[in-house]
């Protein structure tokens, strides 16, 4: 079938390619006439485009003669659509473009919601973007911390929940949110879990978060949403950058909770190098992270290394990426007692968790004509987990291997239609003495069309068919449709609505695990069925010039056959299809600049996460979450205060009698930019507030950190530190 699809995709554009074409070239600069490197320039309503070089120059060949518009985008700047120009056959059109820095994120180009680049305003689904300046400006220690300010996103320690889709399972086992790197799924094949540490921090260009069911394009696990990490491209010229961070933990507020005289600290160092010459670019990054943790057995040691090779010639772009990670950390399952909450029971003092991952992918984009493009990828993910006993029992864990390939065709049959179609195959191999050896096979085909009904109205219709099989078990077929509508009510106002379904196939771990862990006996359940969901949302976006915006969204999800760990009174755990749930909610977010000195931002999410069968809240879901803050800019200085609040969760699974409190965290950050350097200081959990998000696991105590960033490009990248040049 793939062979036929390839032939079709290759043949059709060859017939339709025009004989006489022209060229478009020019330069993209900022308002101070400085070149913008890596800005995207695309011919509107075609697949043709280019990105700018070190001098900000771009060149697009094969452009069909006639009238055309260019769409130019660059993160941190206002996306610009040029006026209509005319290109004659064989001619070269020169068009320089100046972009204005945008204090708020202005309609950036996103790729996740529709599997092709589109303006954020045209997305029928709710999408949040975390630009690079937010990553560096929030002075994060771990990648997942960058997601905290987003509306609808809640982190229970390392577990991510989008609009209440998930509660808590250690290490995101059976995640209902798909983690992707450049659009490629990277959930572990055995646990279906997320390893946030898998990639060096400096590899991240920006992050796109799609909220609501994404299974109609991405299949299993995208039923709650998608987090897509977009990695940086090799940049023109050569550049070295680094980021170093060192932090220190305070003591607990209560004297009787102090458990050690040692100084507890954390450090990380990130290095990156990029170089491009002609059509070839390379990037390499290295990370080292060490921490003692703030509690007994909280130590961690981590290494990351990655490399990216990029080849871009004419209409062909090839990307190869490899990321390796090794992490060794202590295991803290639960505290010794509420009067000794930073220590583990003596029997758990030697507990450790080791893991190692290797992600590889090769990606080819081939723009065959202004109407046809093909994207082909092969990917591999190898992950292996272990513990302190691995050395004595080396056969206990075997590497999980996931091999995937996908082909996707983009077709613009008419200026008002953009169709995406493709097929995906994935094979998973897993093995462990705890859940046996299993082989999984997934096949999928998908199709989606985006239709501009009128200049102000766009509709999207799509569907994906998945078949999922663990060898020896019965096949599971799923069809997931989706549709959406976006109406632009003027330049600054838009309304969108979407509806779709999602599913998540039970993971090998959930089906077959049989183990004893921390006093719990876990038993298998091979008959687990896939979870399914229906999702609908409606959103409203209002921009106020270039200085403020608000976004409001209402949503509802209906989940069936939710897989949850069920704990009986003997401490035996089994994953079962137990629950039918309905989550209704709303979220609002906004950002505003007052003069050039003050920025305020905030996000509020309220959900009603009901277990329909038990008529109670789903566990570990706070009903109300608030994230808000303010930035004050004084010359080269930036001061930030940020509040994070989550209401007390009404249900937990393991120890319902334990005291629980709402989450109330306040952070202060200070930053100064000097030439290519940025100096940062942060005070996190400033009031030393003690809380648990999961029973008997104390949250992070007050800590302070210094961060030094060397960007090597402050003259060309005014937004790097988070302070826009207005």
């Amino acid at each position, binding site marked *: 079938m793939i062979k036929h699809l390839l032939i079709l995709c290759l043949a059709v554009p060859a017939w339709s390619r025009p004989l006489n074409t022209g060229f478009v070239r020019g330069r993209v600069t900022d308002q101070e006439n400085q070149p913008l490197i890596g800005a995207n320039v695309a011919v509107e309503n075609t697949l043709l485009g280019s990105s700018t070089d070190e001098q900000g120059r771009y060149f697009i060949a094969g452009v069909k003669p006639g009238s055309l518009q260019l769409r130019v985008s660059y993160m941190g700047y206002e996306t610009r659509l040029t006026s209509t120009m005319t290109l004659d056959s064989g001619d070269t059109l020169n068009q320089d473009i100046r972009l204005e820095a945008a204090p708020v994120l202005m309609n950036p180009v996103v790729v996740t919601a529709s599997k092709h680049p589109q303006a954020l305003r045209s997305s029928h689904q709710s999408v949040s973007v975390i630009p690079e300046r937010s990553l560096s400006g929030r002075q994060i220690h771990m990648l997942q911390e960058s997601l905290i300010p987003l509306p609808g996103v809640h982190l229970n320690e390392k577990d991510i929940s989008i609009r209440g889709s998930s509660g808590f399972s250690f290490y995101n086992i059976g995640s209902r949110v798909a983690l992707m790197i450049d659009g490629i799924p990277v959930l572990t094949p055995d646990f279906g879990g997320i390893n946030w540490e898998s990639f060096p921090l400096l590899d991240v260009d920006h992050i796109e978060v799609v909220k609501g069911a994404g299974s109609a394009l991405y299949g299993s696990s995208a039923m709650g949403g998608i987090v897509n990490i977009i990695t940086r491209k090799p940049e023109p010229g050569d550049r070295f950058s680094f980021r170093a961070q060192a932090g220190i933990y305070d003591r607990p*507020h*209560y004297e*009787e*909770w102090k458990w050690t005289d040692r100084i507890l600290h954390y450090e990380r160092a990130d290095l990156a190098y990029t170089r491009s010459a002609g059509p070839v670019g390379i990037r390499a990054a290295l990370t080292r992270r060490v921490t003692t943790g703030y509690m007994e057995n909280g130590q961690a040691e981590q290494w990351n290394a990655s490399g990216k090779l990029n080849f871009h010639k004419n209409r062909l772009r090839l990307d190869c990426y490899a990321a390796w990670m090794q992490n060794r950390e202590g295991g803290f399952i639960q505290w010794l*007692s*509420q*009067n000794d*909450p930073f220590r583990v029971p003596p029997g758990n003092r030697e507990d450790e968790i080791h893991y190692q991952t290797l992600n590889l992918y090769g990606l080819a984009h081939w723009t065959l004509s202004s109407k046809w493009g093909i994207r082909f990828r092969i990917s591999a993910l190898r992950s292996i987990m272990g513990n302190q006993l691995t050395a004595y029992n080396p056969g206990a864990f075997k590497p999980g291997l996931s091999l995937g390939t996908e082909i996707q065709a983009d077709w613009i049959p008419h200026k008002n239609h953009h169709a995406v179609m493709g097929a995906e195959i994935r094979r998973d191999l897993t093995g462990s003495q705890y859940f046996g050896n299993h082989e999984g096979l997934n096949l999928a085909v998908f199709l989606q069309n985006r239709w501009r009904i009128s200049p102000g109205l766009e509709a999207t219709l799509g569907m994906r068919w998945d078949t999922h099989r663990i060898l020896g078990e019965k096949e599971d077929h799923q069809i997931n449709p989706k549709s959406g509508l976006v109406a632009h009510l003027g330049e600054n106002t838009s309304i969108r609505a979407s509806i779709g379904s999602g599913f998540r196939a039970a993971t090998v771990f959930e089906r077959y695990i049989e183990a004893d862990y921390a006093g719990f*006996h876990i038993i298998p359940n091979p008959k687990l069925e896939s979870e399914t969901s229906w999702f609908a949302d409606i959103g409203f976006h209002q921009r106020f010039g270039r200085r403020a915006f608000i976004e409001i969204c209402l949503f509802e999800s209906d989940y069936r056959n939710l897989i949850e760990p*069920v*704990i*009986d*009174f*003997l*401490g*035996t755990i089994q994953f079962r299809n*137990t629950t039918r749930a309905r989550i209704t909610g709303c979220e609002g977010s906004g950002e505003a600049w007052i003069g050039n000195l*003050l920025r305020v931002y905030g996000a509020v999410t309220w959900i009603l996460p009901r277990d329909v069968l*038990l008529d109670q809240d789903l566990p570990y879901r706070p009903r109300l979450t608030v994230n808000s803050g*303010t*930035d*004050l800019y004084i010359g080269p200085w930036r*001061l*930030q*205060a940020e509040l994070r609040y989550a209401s007390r969760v009404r249900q937990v699974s*393991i*120890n*319902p*009698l334990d*005291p629980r*409190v709402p989450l*109330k965290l*306040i952070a*202060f950050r200070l930053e100064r930019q000097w030439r290519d350097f940025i100096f940062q200081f942060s005070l996190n959990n*400033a*009031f*030393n*507030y*003690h*809380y*648990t998000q999961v029973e008997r696991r*104390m949250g992070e105590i007050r800590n302070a950190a210094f961060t030094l960033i060397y960007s090597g490009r402050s003259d060309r990248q005014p937004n790097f530190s988070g302070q826009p040049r207005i």
Partner: protein
Amino acid sequence: MCLLLFVVVLMTQPCSIDHGLKPIHSRISGHVLFRGTAPTTTDQVRVGAAASFPPSQMNEILFSDPIDFRRDSARYELYLPPGDYEVVAVIWKEHNQPWNISDIIGLYGGFFLNDVFIPSFLPVSLEDGDSQLDDIHIPADFNRVNRDAKIRGSVTFFGTWPKNSGMVAVAAFSKKPAPGDFVDYYFSSLYIDYSIPPFSAEGFYQCRVRGNEPVAYIAVLWIDDGFHLDQIRDLGFYEDPLEPGEPGVVIPPANGVLENIDIQIHFDS
């Protein structure tokens, strides 16, 4: 504004600020007074308290740290949130086995009569976060868990399992528990075996009891999928071969095994 907030934080540090969770000071304490010898398979012994009896689930019992069971009398401290606790008990745990509610070996309010432990219990009440009740001494009897004999058999199920089945267990009792009397169910049980999975057609059980002592009632118990201990019910029992319909009384030999004590369950009836 940020600077102002920063100054406010520094200034308000000595003031009353919400620091969230705090240490717990309300507690009960006393001694556990052991009788008998701890079995060699003992893993740990703890004191537990529950607001109601039976707790609707096992995780509604709050446990102390492990106590020293090698002495005749061991001091314990159990920190509890303020509130009323209907039962305070001493629970024994065997190596490599989960906590089992039939392994309660002592009760606050229980007493010995002619060397036989009489299960009765008294409530305790902690009024506020500073309440501390000392002298909550608890008698405990290791003889309840010194089990040298075994009863084995099969359980065959006929008919359709209830959809909300969570767990089945086979329990051996020294006397037939009165229906609905949870004190009888949980304190007169000699042993409860939870190893039979629900929805199976047949399962095998093993109850560990004291040899040369009569076991008056061997029952198959059912618990719903919410694992509500207060909704435990009998599915059936081992019948006397000579008097079908009546509970069969067995006396396993000391250090021996009594086999083929088979039970049939008919869901439709």
